[in-house]
């Protein structure tokens, strides 16, 4: 395969960054969930948050 280094670099950077970002979002969510009562986390009851 030609340009293998570029391919690995491009897909690799995307994979790493998206994974890191996804993990950070999930972890921020977990940290916050602990301090919020369940009724405020409305996706537990309705899956499509809508406008107030």
């Amino acid at each position, binding site marked *: 395969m030609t340009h*293998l280094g*570029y391919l690995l670099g491009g897909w690799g950077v995307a994979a790493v*960054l998206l994974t890191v970002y996804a993990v950070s979002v999930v972890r921020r969510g977990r940290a916050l969930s602990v*301090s919020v009562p*369940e009724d*405020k*986390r409305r*996706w537990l009851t309705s899956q499509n948050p809508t406008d107030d």
Partner: protein
Amino acid sequence: MTNPTSSVATTGSPGSRALGLATLAGLVGLLVLAFVLTEPDVRIHPSTGQEIGQFDAVRLLYLHVPMAVITYVAYSLAAFASAGYLIKRTPWWDVTAHAAAEVGTVFCFLVLVTGSIWGRPVWNTWWEWGDVRLMTTLILFLMFVGYLALRRTAADPRVQARRAAVVALVAIVDLPLVNRSVEWWENRTLHQKSTLGELKIEDLTLFTLMVGFLVFLMVFSWLLLHRFRVGWLTLAAGEHQVAAAIKERRAEADGSGVASAVGETS
């Protein structure tokens, strides 16, 4: 306060978990299509008979092109939600705008990086000044870096929401002008003549690109959903804190040694 239910407190829901699994499966499928099933881009030059084209570098486009489109979708959504916030002034719009802008900026960064990596073997340069789409995307990226910087300041949440909304709207209004000016700036643009236009779009290449759009749209939706919920939780945690602080402050008044003798005065 701890979560009364036994399940771990997360931003997940059955729907988002299903979406997450489907996204992972889609990513695997996309990798197979992009690296195994599709052919490299090789053409024969009509006069010299040499082999030309992007060769295997074309496989970067299955990542780059869908992400580029979704970046613009994300920023449009951010601007739309910002306008919604300025009209309706309800937190839902603000949290949506913030989430879309943040996820969009992650995508935009990747678009710039993968574009640059792709450009090196194909255009023989990491960076092409004067390329309209490249420059427009870079300026857009920088404007939203500013947006996120503003969102990270310790301002009153509502002041911040209003200002950020204006920044996002101005960024989108400014974008056509950026695009115009770069286009006029140099009458050359590498993008049009050497990407999709000249790429021999075979059935499978096109199909893979379409799968790429779908899969990255799913990635985007999953991230957006969870990022929205983080924003919503931040808001709820803030309200919770305020409610506790009000209670505490009222207790402080009761403990001040002055008899509470207010009552209705009118």
